[in-house]
């Protein structure tokens, strides 16, 4: 993290790799988005109590998506 602030060039990679990586990440973000949507659509069919783990599942799906978006922005801007 300190390296990132003082010398962001340490994280730089070739543009070809960067584009390839962004495409990979983009595809995976779509997958994560579908997963999140699926959890939401399932909640419309079945209502489970909080202790059943449904809250964990939903929270995890959102955190997963947000972290992937964060990685995408990181690669796009910094790398």
């Amino acid at each position, binding site marked *: 993290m300190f390296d990132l602030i003082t010398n962001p060039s340490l*994280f730089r990679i070739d543009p070809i790799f960067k584009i390839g990586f962004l495409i990979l990440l983009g595809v995976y973000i779509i997958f994560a988005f579908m997963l999140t949507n699926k959890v939401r659509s399932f909640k419309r069919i079945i209502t*489970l109590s909080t202790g*059943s783990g449904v809250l964990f599942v939903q929270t995890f799906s959102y955190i997963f998506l947000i972290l992937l978006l964060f990685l995408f922005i990181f690669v796009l801007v910094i790398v």
Partner: protein
Amino acid sequence: MPDIFTTKKNNLPETPKDTEKGLAPVLSQETPVQKSEKKTNSNNSIGFFTTFLKNPAGISFSQQDADEKIVLFLRRDFGTNSPWIAATVFLIIIPPILRFIFSATGISLPFLPTNFVRLFIVFYYFVVAGFAFSNYLTWFFTLGLVTTKRAVDIDFVNVSSIKYSAADLPDIIDAKYSQNGFSQSFFDYGDVAIAIQTPQEKLLFEQAPRPSEVVNIIDDLIGPKK
């Protein structure tokens, strides 16, 4: 001192006067039956890894009627998750193993920049987490429900499809189960097939735990065979 054990005349409801005397807390205590029901409900709540539960509490589905009660909650037996759990563990330990092999043999991948490898490893672990999570979701959301009015089968096939099937109890002709192979017999799980009146249609609770008990419950609900 008030006599709390005296039967009230004509079963009249509590008066404010009684409340003032401190009777209300005594009378509002739960009866043993209520306590027992409450205990049953707390024991019957669905957990993270619940696969078989009779009279589950804290669950409802969109098409449930007001007077409809869920009798049985089913998921695939947890043992059926072992292949993807083993695969996830294997995938997690691959990068350290590869790193160890590369450093021990002196092999390097010069065409891949170090920064790219670092980022790729981060991405790789995201993929592994996604793989495990999607498998867990498939197990978590693939449910079988038996209610006092119908049998419901919800299949979370993959990320892009959900299959919802239901059959009313009067339409159910028969329920059968099959256990094939060592693991199904050893861990007591199997496929429960519910035949319904529509030809070539049936409901299938795949790899359900305690299949004989499931069939018994369905048989009890549908009554004598037609």
